[in-house]
């Protein structure tokens, strides 16, 4: 009987998660999954051979109290760290459940293994989440904390956990000190893993830890073989990974980097060497645009060659629908004849009011989230300002590097009309999207619509 309820609960979770993925169904989705949770818990309470309710009821009340209070009082800005805390408590819970599972009569190596999993993952999630919370709520320095022996320490920790783990599986017992050790180590590792990550990355970290806590629950499920735990845990685990990935891309960081920041952090902090070209895929570019609030197009001769003007206009419209501010910065010499861009954009029905001259564009640049350079080159070449040996030195240019992110759409690294190389392409915040501009833009449009 109870299991049938579990099946239903699982189904509800699945629906819930799916619905959470799209704006208009999200609220219902959340409700659905909460219902799933409710019936699952109730079923457990009534059906399982629960011997003492007292404790449970008390605890549930306490827990709900805390949870409800926290959820109520936190102000909007504090939400992410709050999620981190909740997530942490989820992690510790799994740890405890796993631990408790050891008190069952017989413990096969398999069970012991799953118990360990739930303990380790749970522990990491717990401390990790706490650190994340600390960093977000500025309870501790939010900047990446890095020291040289970091990679060593982390390595050591993992090794230790592995060895102890194997030892434990061979003769699992509640009393063995090994267990305590493992618990402590996992907690420590959780801390080590997160401190070297900067506050900016915290949302990603939390989402990742969230996926961990799912896995922890899943492991716990194996430990006490309870299939709803497994299903729900696994769902959250995998869904969490995907979500983390999406978030990474939206902030354009690589998941790998976040995952192993603990190890590579030191290297990373010095990795920002000039002279490195960072290409990016259309899908990833979409995720960034989707999150942008102010986009500036900077068209050049390449847009004309690609005849991309219509696609560009459409992308502009979609961005505006998405609540984003859109402008077109026209450099006086963009293209191959005076007013080249005007001809094209007028043809594509871009309203005159959205066109801004270079002199108006540059002051706004700092508010721009993404500057999309479409087949322009010379007119956005910083060398014109910086390098007085350059033949175009002294020509005023559109200063895209000052935008938060710069997309450069062109087919190759080739130079423009004046044949001057362009340092912009190597900029810290520059992402190259190689390929025909029209194809690229159309791709982005598709992402927005599809």
């Amino acid at each position, binding site marked *: 009987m109870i299991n049938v309820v579990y099946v239903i609960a699982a189904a509800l979770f699945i629906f819930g*998660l799916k619905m*959470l*993925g799209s*704006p208009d169904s*999200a*609220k219902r989705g*959340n409700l659905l999954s*909460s219902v799933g*949770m409710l019936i699952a*818990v109730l079923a457990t*309470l009534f059906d399982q*051979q*629960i011997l003492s*309710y007292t*404790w*449970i009821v*008390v605890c*549930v009340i*306490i*827990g*709900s109290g805390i*949870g409800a209070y*926290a*959820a109520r009082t936190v102000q*909007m800005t504090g*939400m992410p760290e*709050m*999620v981190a805390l*909740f997530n942490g*408590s*989820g992690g510790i*819970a799994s740890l*405890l459940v796993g631990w*408790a599972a050891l*008190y069952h009569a017989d413990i096969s190596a*398999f069970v012991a293994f799953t118990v360990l999993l739930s303990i380790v993952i749970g522990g990491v999630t717990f401390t990790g989440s706490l650190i994340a919370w600390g960093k977000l709520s500025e309870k501790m320095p939010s900047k990446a904390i890095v020291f040289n022996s970091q990679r060593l320490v982390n390595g050591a920790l993992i090794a230790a956990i592995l060895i102890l783990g194997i030892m434990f599986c061979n003769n699992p017992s509640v009393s063995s000190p090994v267990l305590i050790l493992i618990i402590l180590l996992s907690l420590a590792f959780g801390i080590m893993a997160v401190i070297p990550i900067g506050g900016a990355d915290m*949302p990603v970290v939390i989402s990742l830890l*969230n*996926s961990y806590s799912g896995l*922890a629950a899943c492991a*716990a499920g194996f*430990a006490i073989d309870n*299939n*709803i*735990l*497994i*299903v*729900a*845990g*696994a769902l*959250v685990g*995998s869904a*969490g*990974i995907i*979500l983390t990935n999406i*978030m990474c891309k*939206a902030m354009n960081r690589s998941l790998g980097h976040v995952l192993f920041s603990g190890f590579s952090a030191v290297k990373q902090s010095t990795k920002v060497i000039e002279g490195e070209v960072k290409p990016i895929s259309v899908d990833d570019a979409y995720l960034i645009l989707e999150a942008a609030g102010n986009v500036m197009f900077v068209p050049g001769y390449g847009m004309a060659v690609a005849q991309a003007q219509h696609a560009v206009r459409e992308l502009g419209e979609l961005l505006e*629908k*998405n*609540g984003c501010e859109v402008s077109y910065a026209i450099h006086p010499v963009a293209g191959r004849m005076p007013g080249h861009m005007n001809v094209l954009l007028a043809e594509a029905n871009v309203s005159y009011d959205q066109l801004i001259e270079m002199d108006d564009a540059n002051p706004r640049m700092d508010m721009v989230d993404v500057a999309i350079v479409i087949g322009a080159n010379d007119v956005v070449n910083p060398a014109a300002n910086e390098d007085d040996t350059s033949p175009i030195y002294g020509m005023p240019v559109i200063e895209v590097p000052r935008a938060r992110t710069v997309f450069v759409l062109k087919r190759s690294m080739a130079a423009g009309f004046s044949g001057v190389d362009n340092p912009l392409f190597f900029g810290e915040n520059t992402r190259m999207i190689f390929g025909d501009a029209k194809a690229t833009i159309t791709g982005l449009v598709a992402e927005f619509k599809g």
Partner: protein
Amino acid sequence: MDAIYLLFILMLSIFLGFEIISKVPATLHTPLMSGANAISGITLVGAVTSAGAELGGTATFLGALAVIFATVNVVGGYMVTDRMLGMFRKKPAGAAK
């Protein structure tokens, strides 16, 4: 034999997890995360079982603790998510202009 079924279930669930999350608008990232997080509070079920199944003091104690934490996660998680979505409700209207 059970283990196998569980394995099947695990495999299928993971696939499902990957399949159901596809493209998520930025505005939904946090709510989705916290909603998923609430689901991961499912350990509550496990906690209840351990806490309930009189396995002696420590175990029960651990279980009880687990119950508290898990409940915080569940209740807090769902409520916070709901709040986020609630305020987000209006936004699109504004955004869509």
